[in-house]
Protein backbone atom coordinates (compact mmCIF):
# COMPACT_ATOMS: atom_id res chain seq x y z
CA UNK A 1 0.00 0.00 0.00
CA UNK A 2 1.19 3.48 -0.86
CA UNK A 3 1.98 5.87 1.93
CA UNK A 4 -0.97 8.23 2.23
CA UNK A 5 -1.01 11.83 3.29
CA UNK A 6 -3.54 12.48 6.03
CA UNK A 7 -5.12 15.87 5.88
CA UNK A 8 -7.28 18.17 7.89
CA UNK A 9 -8.79 20.55 5.38
CA UNK A 10 -9.61 24.09 6.47
CA UNK A 11 -9.17 25.83 3.14
CA UNK A 12 -11.80 26.30 0.47
CA UNK A 13 -9.92 24.73 -2.40
CA UNK A 14 -7.74 21.68 -2.76
CA UNK A 15 -5.80 20.72 -5.85
CA UNK A 16 -5.31 17.01 -6.25
CA UNK A 17 -2.84 15.96 -8.88
CA UNK A 18 -1.87 12.30 -9.41
CA UNK A 19 -1.90 11.46 -5.72
CA UNK A 20 -3.62 9.50 -2.99
CA UNK A 21 -4.91 11.35 0.05
CA UNK A 22 -6.89 10.64 3.16
CA UNK A 23 -8.85 13.57 4.46
CA UNK A 24 -9.37 12.97 8.16
CA UNK A 25 -11.59 15.99 8.51
CA UNK A 26 -13.10 18.62 6.30
CA UNK A 27 -13.65 21.73 8.38
CA UNK A 28 -14.74 24.26 5.75
CA UNK A 29 -18.39 24.46 4.74
CA UNK A 30 -17.39 25.12 1.15
CA UNK A 31 -14.73 23.01 -0.50
CA UNK A 32 -13.70 22.77 -4.14
CA UNK A 33 -11.65 19.78 -5.24
CA UNK A 34 -9.75 20.30 -8.48
CA UNK A 35 -8.80 16.91 -9.79
CA UNK A 36 -6.04 16.25 -12.33
CA UNK A 37 -4.68 12.89 -13.42
CA UNK A 38 -5.21 9.75 -11.38
CA UNK A 39 -6.35 10.52 -7.83
CA UNK A 40 -7.67 8.44 -4.94
CA UNK A 41 -9.17 10.16 -1.97
CA UNK A 42 -10.76 9.03 1.28
CA UNK A 43 -12.89 11.29 3.46
CA UNK A 44 -13.64 10.43 7.06
CA UNK A 45 -15.47 13.45 8.43
CA UNK A 46 -17.42 16.43 7.15
CA UNK A 47 -18.95 19.46 8.93
CA UNK A 48 -22.68 19.76 9.51
CA UNK A 49 -23.03 21.97 6.49
CA UNK A 50 -20.83 20.71 3.74
CA UNK A 51 -20.85 21.80 0.12
CA UNK A 52 -18.28 19.96 -1.87
CA UNK A 53 -17.64 20.73 -5.52
CA UNK A 54 -15.61 18.35 -7.58
CA UNK A 55 -14.06 19.42 -10.89
CA UNK A 56 -12.75 16.58 -12.93
CA UNK A 57 -10.39 18.07 -15.48
CA UNK A 58 -9.85 16.42 -18.86
CA UNK A 59 -8.74 12.78 -18.56
CA UNK A 60 -8.89 12.73 -14.76
CA UNK A 61 -9.64 9.47 -12.99
CA UNK A 62 -11.00 10.08 -9.52
CA UNK A 63 -11.81 7.45 -6.92
CA UNK A 64 -13.33 8.94 -3.84
CA UNK A 65 -14.50 6.97 -0.80
CA UNK A 66 -16.45 8.75 1.89
CA UNK A 67 -17.02 6.96 5.18
CA UNK A 68 -18.90 9.33 7.43
CA UNK A 69 -21.38 9.56 10.25
CA UNK A 70 -24.17 12.02 9.54
CA UNK A 71 -25.83 13.61 12.53
CA UNK A 72 -27.88 16.66 11.53
CA UNK A 73 -25.77 17.08 8.44
CA UNK A 74 -26.58 18.73 5.14
CA UNK A 75 -24.13 17.48 2.58
CA UNK A 76 -24.26 18.58 -1.03
CA UNK A 77 -21.80 17.31 -3.59
CA UNK A 78 -21.65 18.98 -7.00
CA UNK A 79 -19.70 17.27 -9.71
CA UNK A 80 -18.52 18.66 -13.04
CA UNK A 81 -17.05 16.10 -15.39
CA UNK A 82 -14.85 17.22 -18.27
CA UNK A 83 -13.76 15.29 -21.35
CA UNK A 84 -12.83 11.60 -20.89
CA UNK A 85 -13.01 11.61 -17.13
CA UNK A 86 -13.84 8.74 -14.88
CA UNK A 87 -15.41 9.08 -11.44
CA UNK A 88 -16.08 6.40 -8.84
CA UNK A 89 -17.77 7.95 -5.86
CA UNK A 90 -18.52 5.62 -2.97
CA UNK A 91 -20.45 7.14 -0.14
CA UNK A 92 -20.89 5.04 3.00
CA UNK A 93 -22.69 6.67 5.90
CA UNK A 94 -24.57 6.06 9.08
CA UNK A 95 -27.29 8.58 9.85
CA UNK A 96 -28.78 9.86 13.05
CA UNK A 97 -31.51 12.44 13.69
CA UNK A 98 -32.20 14.22 10.43
CA UNK A 99 -29.74 14.57 7.55
CA UNK A 100 -29.65 15.39 3.87
CA UNK A 101 -27.41 14.17 1.13
CA UNK A 102 -27.55 15.59 -2.37
CA UNK A 103 -25.25 14.50 -5.13
CA UNK A 104 -25.52 16.45 -8.35
CA UNK A 105 -23.68 15.56 -11.51
CA UNK A 106 -23.35 17.94 -14.39
CA UNK A 107 -22.21 16.16 -17.46
CA UNK A 108 -21.63 18.68 -20.21
CA UNK A 109 -18.81 16.90 -21.94
CA UNK A 110 -18.23 13.60 -23.72
CA UNK A 111 -16.83 10.15 -23.04
CA UNK A 112 -17.17 10.37 -19.28
CA UNK A 113 -17.89 7.55 -16.89
CA UNK A 114 -19.62 8.10 -13.55
CA UNK A 115 -20.37 5.50 -10.91
CA UNK A 116 -22.13 6.75 -7.79
CA UNK A 117 -22.62 4.22 -5.03
CA UNK A 118 -24.31 5.13 -1.75
CA UNK A 119 -24.82 2.91 1.28
CA UNK A 120 -26.66 4.37 4.25
CA UNK A 121 -27.29 2.69 7.58
CA UNK A 122 -29.82 4.01 10.05
CA UNK A 123 -28.64 4.83 13.52
CA UNK A 124 -32.04 6.09 14.71
CA UNK A 125 -32.94 8.93 12.44
CA UNK A 126 -33.87 9.81 8.93
CA UNK A 127 -32.20 10.89 5.77
CA UNK A 128 -33.18 12.33 2.44
CA UNK A 129 -30.97 11.25 -0.38
CA UNK A 130 -31.12 12.96 -3.73
CA UNK A 131 -28.94 11.88 -6.54
CA UNK A 132 -29.27 13.93 -9.62
CA UNK A 133 -27.61 13.31 -12.93
CA UNK A 134 -27.93 16.01 -15.54
CA UNK A 135 -26.66 14.93 -18.88
CA UNK A 136 -26.68 17.90 -21.25
CA UNK A 137 -27.79 17.98 -24.88
CA UNK A 138 -25.33 17.38 -27.69
CA UNK A 139 -23.18 15.20 -25.47
CA UNK A 140 -22.32 11.63 -26.42
CA UNK A 141 -20.65 8.44 -25.20
CA UNK A 142 -21.26 9.10 -21.54
CA UNK A 143 -21.89 6.40 -18.98
CA UNK A 144 -23.71 7.21 -15.80
CA UNK A 145 -24.75 4.82 -13.01
CA UNK A 146 -26.25 5.30 -9.58
CA UNK A 147 -26.65 2.57 -7.01
CA UNK A 148 -28.20 3.61 -3.69
CA UNK A 149 -29.05 1.25 -0.87
CA UNK A 150 -30.19 1.91 2.67
CA UNK A 151 -30.37 -0.46 5.62
CA UNK A 152 -32.97 0.76 8.07
CA UNK A 153 -34.80 -0.01 11.28
CA UNK A 154 -37.87 1.85 10.11
CA UNK A 155 -38.89 1.93 6.46
CA UNK A 156 -40.03 5.55 6.67
CA UNK A 157 -36.66 6.80 7.72
CA UNK A 158 -35.25 7.13 4.24
CA UNK A 159 -36.43 8.86 1.16
CA UNK A 160 -34.38 8.36 -1.95
CA UNK A 161 -34.98 10.34 -5.08
CA UNK A 162 -32.81 9.36 -7.93
CA UNK A 163 -33.29 11.92 -10.62
CA UNK A 164 -32.01 11.59 -14.11
CA UNK A 165 -32.29 14.50 -16.41
CA UNK A 166 -31.15 13.28 -19.75
CA UNK A 167 -31.18 15.73 -22.59
CA UNK A 168 -29.53 13.46 -25.11
CA UNK A 169 -30.05 9.91 -26.32
CA UNK A 170 -26.37 9.20 -26.62
CA UNK A 171 -25.87 8.13 -23.03
CA UNK A 172 -25.94 4.89 -21.11
CA UNK A 173 -27.56 5.60 -17.78
CA UNK A 174 -29.07 3.50 -15.04
CA UNK A 175 -30.08 3.92 -11.48
CA UNK A 176 -31.13 1.59 -8.78
CA UNK A 177 -32.36 2.32 -5.26
CA UNK A 178 -33.44 -0.03 -2.49
CA UNK A 179 -34.38 0.32 1.14
CA UNK A 180 -34.35 -2.78 3.32
CA UNK A 181 -34.19 -4.05 6.87
CA UNK A 182 -31.60 -6.42 8.23
CA UNK A 183 -32.57 -9.90 7.05
CA UNK A 184 -34.03 -11.88 9.92
CA UNK A 185 -32.45 -15.01 8.55
CA UNK A 186 -28.98 -13.41 8.52
CA UNK A 187 -29.38 -12.38 12.16
CA UNK A 188 -30.48 -15.87 13.16
CA UNK A 189 -27.53 -17.30 11.29
CA UNK A 190 -24.94 -15.14 13.05
CA UNK A 191 -26.58 -15.68 16.44
CA UNK A 192 -26.48 -19.42 15.81
CA UNK A 193 -22.71 -19.03 15.46
CA UNK A 194 -22.54 -17.50 18.93
CA UNK A 195 -22.66 -13.77 18.18
CA UNK A 196 -24.86 -11.66 20.41
CA UNK A 197 -27.76 -9.90 18.69
CA UNK A 198 -25.89 -6.60 19.03
CA UNK A 199 -22.66 -7.97 17.56
CA UNK A 200 -24.59 -9.61 14.74
CA UNK A 201 -26.34 -6.37 13.83
CA UNK A 202 -23.10 -4.47 14.05
CA UNK A 203 -21.12 -6.72 11.74
CA UNK A 204 -23.96 -6.77 9.21
CA UNK A 205 -24.20 -2.98 9.18
CA UNK A 206 -20.46 -2.45 9.03
CA UNK A 207 -20.15 -5.01 6.27
CA UNK A 208 -22.89 -3.29 4.31
CA UNK A 209 -20.97 -0.02 4.46
CA UNK A 210 -17.43 -1.26 4.02
CA UNK A 211 -18.43 -3.48 1.13
CA UNK A 212 -18.40 -0.53 -1.26
CA UNK A 213 -15.17 1.10 -0.12
CA UNK A 214 -12.14 0.62 -2.31
CA UNK A 215 -9.45 2.12 -0.11
CA UNK A 216 -8.11 -0.59 2.19
CA UNK A 217 -7.05 2.07 4.63
CA UNK A 218 -10.65 3.07 5.31
CA UNK A 219 -11.81 -0.50 5.74
CA UNK A 220 -9.41 -0.98 8.61
CA UNK A 221 -10.72 2.10 10.35
CA UNK A 222 -13.76 2.36 12.56
CA UNK A 223 -17.26 3.33 11.65
CA UNK A 224 -17.01 6.72 10.02
CA UNK A 225 -15.87 9.39 12.40
CA UNK A 226 -17.61 7.90 15.41
Amino acid sequence: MKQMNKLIVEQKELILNNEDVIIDKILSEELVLQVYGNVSCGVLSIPSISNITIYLHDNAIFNIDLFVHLNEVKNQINIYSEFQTKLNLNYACTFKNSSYLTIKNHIKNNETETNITVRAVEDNGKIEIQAEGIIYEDTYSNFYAEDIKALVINNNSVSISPNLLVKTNAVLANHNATISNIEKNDLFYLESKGLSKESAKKVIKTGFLKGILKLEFLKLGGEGNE
Partner: protein
Amino acid sequence: MLKINNLTVKVLDKYILKNFNLEINEGEIHVLMGQNGAGKSTISKVIMRDDTYEVISGSIKYNDENLIDMSTTDIARKGIFLITQNPPEISGVTNAEMLRTSLTDMGKNDMNILEFNRKMTKICDKLNISNSFIHRDINYNMSGGEKKKNELLHMWMLEPKCIILDEIDSGLDVDSLKLVANSILDYYQEFKPSILIITHQKSLVDILKPNYVHILADKKIVKTGDYNLALSIFENGFRSSIMSESEANE
Protein backbone atom coordinates in the same frame (compact mmCIF):
# COMPACT_ATOMS: atom_id res chain seq x y z
CA MET B 1 -27.54 -34.73 26.59
CA LEU B 2 -30.21 -33.51 24.14
CA LYS B 3 -33.73 -34.58 25.00
CA ILE B 4 -36.78 -33.47 23.08
CA ASN B 5 -40.06 -34.24 24.74
CA ASN B 6 -43.55 -34.08 23.26
CA LEU B 7 -42.64 -31.11 21.13
CA THR B 8 -45.41 -29.46 19.15
CA VAL B 9 -44.47 -26.75 16.66
CA LYS B 10 -46.47 -24.44 14.44
CA VAL B 11 -45.58 -22.21 11.55
CA LEU B 12 -48.14 -19.70 10.30
CA ASP B 13 -51.07 -21.60 11.86
CA LYS B 14 -49.90 -24.92 10.46
CA TYR B 15 -48.74 -27.74 12.73
CA ILE B 16 -45.40 -29.07 11.51
CA LEU B 17 -44.47 -31.24 14.49
CA LYS B 18 -46.82 -32.86 17.00
CA ASN B 19 -45.61 -34.71 20.08
CA PHE B 20 -42.13 -35.13 18.64
CA ASN B 21 -39.71 -37.11 20.84
CA LEU B 22 -35.99 -37.63 20.41
CA GLU B 23 -33.12 -38.30 22.79
CA ILE B 24 -29.47 -38.08 21.86
CA ASN B 25 -26.84 -39.03 24.41
CA GLU B 26 -23.27 -37.88 24.58
CA GLY B 27 -21.16 -39.17 21.73
CA GLU B 28 -24.06 -40.71 19.83
CA ILE B 29 -24.66 -40.29 16.13
CA HIS B 30 -28.28 -40.18 15.02
CA VAL B 31 -29.64 -40.02 11.50
CA LEU B 32 -33.01 -38.44 10.83
CA MET B 33 -34.72 -39.32 7.60
CA GLY B 34 -38.08 -38.48 6.13
CA GLN B 35 -39.80 -37.35 2.98
CA ASN B 36 -39.53 -33.81 1.68
CA GLY B 37 -41.69 -31.52 3.76
CA ALA B 38 -41.80 -33.93 6.72
CA GLY B 39 -40.37 -31.32 9.10
CA LYS B 40 -36.70 -32.29 9.31
CA SER B 41 -35.33 -28.80 8.75
CA THR B 42 -37.98 -27.47 11.10
CA ILE B 43 -36.74 -29.54 14.04
CA SER B 44 -33.14 -28.50 13.34
CA LYS B 45 -34.07 -24.83 13.49
CA VAL B 46 -36.42 -25.17 16.44
CA ILE B 47 -33.56 -26.58 18.49
CA MET B 48 -31.64 -23.34 17.76
CA ARG B 49 -34.79 -21.34 18.58
CA ASP B 50 -35.39 -19.76 15.21
CA ASP B 51 -38.43 -17.69 16.17
CA THR B 52 -40.09 -18.28 12.81
CA TYR B 53 -41.23 -21.50 14.45
CA GLU B 54 -43.70 -21.29 17.29
CA VAL B 55 -43.32 -23.85 20.04
CA ILE B 56 -46.80 -24.72 21.30
CA SER B 57 -45.85 -27.29 23.90
CA GLY B 58 -43.15 -29.69 24.96
CA SER B 59 -39.54 -29.24 25.97
CA ILE B 60 -36.04 -29.36 24.54
CA LYS B 61 -33.59 -30.16 27.29
CA TYR B 62 -29.86 -29.88 26.86
CA ASN B 63 -27.97 -31.12 29.89
CA ASP B 64 -31.13 -30.46 31.89
CA GLU B 65 -31.55 -26.87 30.75
CA ASN B 66 -34.64 -26.03 28.72
CA LEU B 67 -33.55 -24.49 25.43
CA ILE B 68 -37.04 -23.19 24.79
CA ASP B 69 -36.43 -20.34 27.22
CA MET B 70 -33.06 -19.45 25.73
CA SER B 71 -31.91 -17.14 22.95
CA THR B 72 -30.24 -18.52 19.84
CA THR B 73 -26.97 -16.92 20.94
CA ASP B 74 -27.05 -18.65 24.34
CA ILE B 75 -27.86 -22.00 22.75
CA ALA B 76 -24.87 -21.62 20.42
CA ARG B 77 -22.71 -20.75 23.40
CA LYS B 78 -23.80 -23.94 25.14
CA GLY B 79 -22.00 -25.70 22.29
CA ILE B 80 -24.85 -26.55 19.93
CA PHE B 81 -24.04 -25.97 16.28
CA LEU B 82 -26.28 -26.14 13.24
CA ILE B 83 -25.35 -26.31 9.59
CA THR B 84 -28.56 -25.38 7.81
CA GLN B 85 -29.70 -26.82 4.52
CA ASN B 86 -29.17 -23.50 2.73
CA PRO B 87 -26.61 -21.40 4.58
CA PRO B 88 -27.13 -17.70 3.79
CA GLU B 89 -24.57 -15.44 2.13
CA ILE B 90 -23.54 -12.53 4.33
CA SER B 91 -21.73 -10.05 2.15
CA GLY B 92 -19.33 -7.66 3.82
CA VAL B 93 -18.68 -9.97 6.80
CA THR B 94 -15.66 -12.24 6.55
CA ASN B 95 -15.29 -15.67 8.09
CA ALA B 96 -12.39 -14.46 10.19
CA GLU B 97 -14.29 -11.45 11.46
CA MET B 98 -17.35 -13.49 12.37
CA LEU B 99 -15.35 -16.24 14.07
CA ARG B 100 -13.16 -13.86 16.03
CA THR B 101 -16.21 -11.91 17.16
CA SER B 102 -17.94 -15.11 18.17
CA LEU B 103 -14.97 -16.55 20.04
CA THR B 104 -14.39 -13.22 21.77
CA ASP B 105 -18.07 -12.84 22.69
CA MET B 106 -17.97 -16.35 24.13
CA GLY B 107 -14.80 -15.59 26.06
CA LYS B 108 -13.08 -18.43 24.20
CA ASN B 109 -10.66 -16.40 22.13
CA ASP B 110 -7.37 -17.29 23.74
CA MET B 111 -5.54 -17.19 20.40
CA ASN B 112 -3.61 -14.23 19.07
CA ILE B 113 -4.06 -13.32 15.39
CA LEU B 114 -1.13 -15.44 14.35
CA GLU B 115 -2.36 -18.56 16.13
CA PHE B 116 -5.88 -17.91 14.89
CA ASN B 117 -4.68 -17.68 11.28
CA ARG B 118 -2.51 -20.74 11.67
CA LYS B 119 -5.46 -22.75 12.94
CA MET B 120 -7.71 -21.48 10.14
CA THR B 121 -5.05 -22.32 7.54
CA LYS B 122 -4.68 -25.85 8.85
CA ILE B 123 -8.42 -26.43 8.67
CA CYS B 124 -8.63 -24.97 5.16
CA ASP B 125 -5.93 -27.39 4.06
CA LYS B 126 -7.82 -30.32 5.57
CA LEU B 127 -11.03 -29.23 3.85
CA ASN B 128 -9.18 -28.77 0.58
CA ILE B 129 -10.19 -25.12 0.26
CA SER B 130 -7.88 -22.20 -0.42
CA ASN B 131 -6.52 -20.14 2.50
CA SER B 132 -8.26 -17.19 0.94
CA PHE B 133 -11.48 -18.53 2.52
CA ILE B 134 -10.25 -17.12 5.84
CA HIS B 135 -10.91 -13.60 4.63
CA ARG B 136 -13.76 -14.26 2.27
CA ASP B 137 -17.24 -12.97 2.99
CA ILE B 138 -19.35 -15.64 4.63
CA ASN B 139 -20.62 -18.01 1.91
CA TYR B 140 -20.69 -15.09 -0.51
CA ASN B 141 -20.38 -16.12 -4.15
CA MET B 142 -19.47 -19.65 -3.08
CA SER B 143 -20.71 -22.76 -4.85
CA GLY B 144 -23.06 -25.11 -3.00
CA GLY B 145 -20.20 -27.43 -2.09
CA GLU B 146 -17.88 -24.61 -1.01
CA LYS B 147 -20.58 -23.30 1.32
CA LYS B 148 -20.80 -26.65 3.09
CA LYS B 149 -17.03 -26.76 3.52
CA ASN B 150 -17.08 -23.17 4.72
CA GLU B 151 -19.62 -24.16 7.36
CA LEU B 152 -17.35 -27.00 8.45
CA LEU B 153 -14.56 -24.46 8.80
CA HIS B 154 -16.78 -22.67 11.33
CA MET B 155 -17.45 -25.93 13.14
CA TRP B 156 -13.75 -26.75 13.50
CA MET B 157 -13.06 -23.25 14.81
CA LEU B 158 -15.94 -23.09 17.29
CA GLU B 159 -15.54 -26.68 18.54
CA PRO B 160 -19.17 -27.44 19.40
CA LYS B 161 -20.34 -30.37 21.53
CA CYS B 162 -23.58 -31.09 19.76
CA ILE B 163 -23.86 -30.85 16.00
CA ILE B 164 -26.88 -30.79 13.73
CA LEU B 165 -26.22 -31.24 10.02
CA ASP B 166 -29.15 -30.57 7.72
CA GLU B 167 -28.52 -32.17 4.33
CA ILE B 168 -24.84 -31.33 4.36
CA ASP B 169 -24.54 -33.66 1.39
CA SER B 170 -26.69 -31.58 -0.94
CA GLY B 171 -24.76 -29.80 -3.68
CA LEU B 172 -21.63 -31.92 -3.18
CA ASP B 173 -19.90 -33.93 -5.88
CA VAL B 174 -18.73 -37.46 -5.07
CA ASP B 175 -15.22 -36.45 -4.00
CA SER B 176 -16.39 -33.51 -1.89
CA LEU B 177 -19.00 -35.68 -0.21
CA LYS B 178 -16.29 -38.15 0.82
CA LEU B 179 -14.08 -35.34 2.08
CA VAL B 180 -16.92 -33.72 4.02
CA ALA B 181 -18.01 -37.02 5.56
CA ASN B 182 -14.45 -37.81 6.59
CA SER B 183 -13.99 -34.37 8.04
CA ILE B 184 -17.06 -34.92 10.20
CA LEU B 185 -15.73 -38.33 11.18
CA ASP B 186 -12.34 -36.80 12.12
CA TYR B 187 -14.10 -34.20 14.20
CA TYR B 188 -16.17 -36.91 15.86
CA GLN B 189 -13.10 -38.94 16.72
CA GLU B 190 -11.32 -35.92 18.16
CA PHE B 191 -14.14 -34.29 20.15
CA LYS B 192 -16.76 -37.04 20.58
CA PRO B 193 -19.73 -34.71 20.10
CA SER B 194 -23.34 -35.78 19.74
CA ILE B 195 -24.42 -35.57 16.13
CA LEU B 196 -27.82 -35.37 14.46
CA ILE B 197 -27.58 -35.86 10.71
CA ILE B 198 -30.44 -35.18 8.35
CA THR B 199 -29.66 -36.85 5.06
CA HIS B 200 -30.85 -38.81 2.06
CA GLN B 201 -27.33 -39.99 1.17
CA LYS B 202 -26.27 -43.58 1.68
CA SER B 203 -22.55 -42.86 1.44
CA LEU B 204 -22.74 -40.36 4.29
CA VAL B 205 -24.55 -42.88 6.46
CA ASP B 206 -22.03 -45.55 5.48
CA ILE B 207 -19.07 -43.43 6.53
CA LEU B 208 -20.52 -42.07 9.76
CA LYS B 209 -22.05 -45.33 11.02
CA PRO B 210 -24.88 -43.94 13.13
CA ASN B 211 -26.02 -45.53 16.38
CA TYR B 212 -29.65 -44.81 15.56
CA VAL B 213 -31.76 -44.08 12.51
CA HIS B 214 -35.16 -42.39 12.81
CA ILE B 215 -37.98 -41.85 10.38
CA LEU B 216 -39.96 -38.63 10.65
CA ALA B 217 -43.50 -38.88 9.29
CA ASP B 218 -46.89 -37.61 10.42
CA LYS B 219 -45.21 -34.81 12.40
CA LYS B 220 -43.27 -37.13 14.70
CA ILE B 221 -40.75 -39.93 14.78
CA VAL B 222 -42.65 -43.02 13.75
CA LYS B 223 -39.84 -45.52 13.65
CA THR B 224 -36.38 -45.89 15.14
CA GLY B 225 -33.83 -48.50 14.22
CA ASP B 226 -30.18 -48.97 13.48
CA TYR B 227 -28.16 -48.86 10.28
CA ASN B 228 -30.40 -51.55 8.79
CA LEU B 229 -33.39 -49.23 8.89
CA ALA B 230 -31.45 -46.77 6.75
CA LEU B 231 -30.56 -49.57 4.34
CA SER B 232 -34.22 -50.52 4.12
CA ILE B 233 -35.14 -46.92 3.30
CA PHE B 234 -32.46 -46.65 0.62
CA GLU B 235 -33.70 -49.90 -0.93
CA ASN B 236 -37.44 -49.77 -0.49
CA GLY B 237 -38.40 -46.19 0.29
CA PHE B 238 -40.10 -44.73 3.34
CA ARG B 239 -43.55 -46.22 3.17
CA SER B 240 -42.62 -49.87 3.26
CA SER B 241 -39.84 -49.18 5.77
CA ILE B 242 -42.33 -47.61 8.14
CA MET B 243 -44.78 -50.50 7.75
CA SER B 244 -42.27 -53.15 8.60
CA GLU B 245 -38.56 -53.49 8.39
CA SER B 246 -38.62 -57.26 8.00
CA GLU B 247 -41.25 -57.15 5.26
CA ALA B 248 -39.31 -54.49 3.44
CA ASN B 249 -36.14 -56.55 3.61
CA GLU B 250 -37.68 -59.50 1.88
